[in-house]
């Protein structure tokens, strides 16, 4: 009885699936789906390599400092970095005093309350503060950006496939609109063509406009490519600040486990030595 009912249920499900298959195949032949514009024009991120790649890679602190400068002078005009605190910049090689100075001199002040009147106010940043957002709230951000919302960048390199290369490609990937791009996919007012962006049209105007847009303290020439690479590295650090500790702990665990496993294997062989199995 169980097998009879099972057989009937099996015939029903498999039969419905085969009918679905035939219907789908018929539709696929008679009404082929046209490839989407995105699938034709969208590009995968460019290849770019960093010192922090691979199982031994560690951050290039000079590069992270340059990346911070690009963020502070360019990106932070619109994008927040709300998971990162000023004190975290000590990881980039800054001293405590330098961090204090960076926090104090940050161009957006930290929201606060006037201690005398209780009215909303702002005060200079402290190392313990999270990086203040450039806009008071989402409405203000949209109002200033043609109704587009500049996303927070703290986790951007983990929130996209191949994130660091994506950031680099997006920043260096603005192009003239291809002549064969269908009319409905052409960028409208306030949009910019960028094939590395999922739907090709990006509300962000090209942020890196030319060489020497920022002046690096270590004398590195600030080419567009250099700035894009450095800020991509910096955003890798903001998304994964514990990466170096993670890799170090990984190697230590691995060495321990290899010895542990070898000893286990030897005891296994010893215990089973006189037992055929």
């Amino acid at each position, binding site marked *: 009885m169980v*097998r009879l009912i099972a*057989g009937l249920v099996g015939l029903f*499900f498999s039969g419905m699936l085969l009918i*679905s298959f035939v219907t789908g195949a018929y539709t696929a032949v008679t009404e082929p789906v046209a490839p989407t514009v995105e699938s034709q024009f969208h590009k995968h991120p460019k290849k770019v390599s960093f010192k922090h790649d691979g199982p031994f890679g560690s951050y290039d602190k000079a590069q992270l400092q340059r990346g911070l400068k690009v963020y502070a002078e360019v990106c932070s005009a619109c994008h927040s970095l709300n998971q990162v605190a000023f004190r975290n910049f000590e990881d980039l090689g800054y001293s405590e005093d330098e961090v204090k100075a960076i926090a104090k001199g940050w161009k957006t002040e930290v929201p606060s309350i006037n201690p005398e009147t209780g009215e909303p106010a702002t005060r200079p940043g402290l190392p313990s503060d999270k990086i203040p957002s450039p806009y008071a709230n989402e409405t203000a951000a949209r109002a200033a950006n043609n109704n587009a919302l500049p996303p927070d960048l703290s986790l951007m390199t983990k*929130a996209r496939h191949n994130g660091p290369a994506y950031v680099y490609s997006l920043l260096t990937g603005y192009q003239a609109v291809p002549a064969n791009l269908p009319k409905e996919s052409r960028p409208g007012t306030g949009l910019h063509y960028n094939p590395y962006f999922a739907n090709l049209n990006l509300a962000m105007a090209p942020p890196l406009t030319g060489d020497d847009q920022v002046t690096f303290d270590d004398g590195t020439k600030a080419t567009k490519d250099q700035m894009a690479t450095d800020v991509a590295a910096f955003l890798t650090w903001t998304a994964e600040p514990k990466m170096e*500790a993670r890799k170090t702990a*990984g190697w230590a665990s691995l060495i321990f486990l290899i010895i542990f*496993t070898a000893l286990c294997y030897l005891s296994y062989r010893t215990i089973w030595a006189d037992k*055929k199995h």
Partner: protein
Amino acid sequence: MSFPWANEYKPQHPVMQWVDERLPLPRFVYNAIGGGYPVPRNLNYWWNFGVLSGVALMIQIITGIILAMHYYASIDGAFNSVEHIMRDVNGGWFIRYAHMNGASFFFIVVYIHIFRGLFYGSYKAPREMVWLLGVVIFLLMMATGFMGYVLPWGQMSFWGAQVITGFFSAIPVVGEPLRQWLLGGFAPDQAALNRFFSLHYLLPFVILGAIILHVWALHIPGSSNPTGVAVKAESDTVPFHPYYTAKDGFGLGLFLIAFVLVTFFAPNMLGHPDNYIPANPMSTPAHIVPEWYYWPFYAILRAFTVDFAIPFTGIVIIPAKLMGVLAMFGSILLLFFLPWLDTSPVRSGKYRPLFRKFFYVLVFNIGVLGFCGVMPAEEPYVMLSQLAAAYYFAHFLIILPIVSRIEKTAPLPNSITEAVTGKPLETAAA
């Protein structure tokens, strides 16, 4: 219950004797996973995965309890509390990555454990109850895994919850009210997040209880083995400790090496980038995909595209969406009936040439379903998933009962001892 030749627990130390007379807990452990449990001597490495599943559950419970100390189940605070764990809690990044990848590793070892049972006929008499409890554990794991994925309240958390709870709205009449009751609202929100957190903390302990029953039921007939031939004499078995504790120790080492490689060097490999974007009910991700361990079932869900209807009348008896939901649950529930669908008296696939071929097709087929589950619902993936899902149901419900009836099985060894030593049981020494 055990074999008559099982070692008896004989505590030497007066303290242990005193404890044993009053509460024989050490005796219980000795008989369950110590020298008092005789196990077939011919188990291969596929038999390591039961113990590894238990280890994986313990990793999840320990890391999970620590995470819960720092996590904040609030739609405004959950995402940031996870980032707080990743950045500011001492070693928090390790605990969180271990928990996140531990779930995947738990499913990897459990899937191997299930396929081992399928191949060697471990579900057959007298071990049906072991199998049934195993399916219950699997269902509990899927529910726990789903609710855990919602907790970080990222984009995939939110939209995954939206899609999965949406299954219930396919049920006629009561579907939509049932969905709202389960969620505590019209969409996933604070009420849903709170109850998911509560249940996500509860269910692992229910799983632990079910595992105790699973092992208890296993100890009645004792472990199966690669030949599928029942234990007949003492020379067929070895005590669990030290023989299999040593072998499991080696297996555990290999498992932990794989776990460490992913957790420390590619911790986000098995996750979806969209879950690093905070949940936003106003913005739907381009492709909503569940975690990899649900992909085959997600493919079955989406494979039904045609309503079950009376032709030319337009009367729909079962809409395609409902059928997909029924099939998805059915694809797991049918496993409960497996011991009675496969009637072959031979347990092990080693001696079942025809069964073995279909088994390999099934493994490949589930791989195909998994692939279809992660791809967008477009052609040719939908068509591929329809063929693969049709085979999945046919395999268990039609092919297995027929194969076990018509198959000519290979001759079985007379005993485990004979299979191992080549000598008949009577003359072979241990």
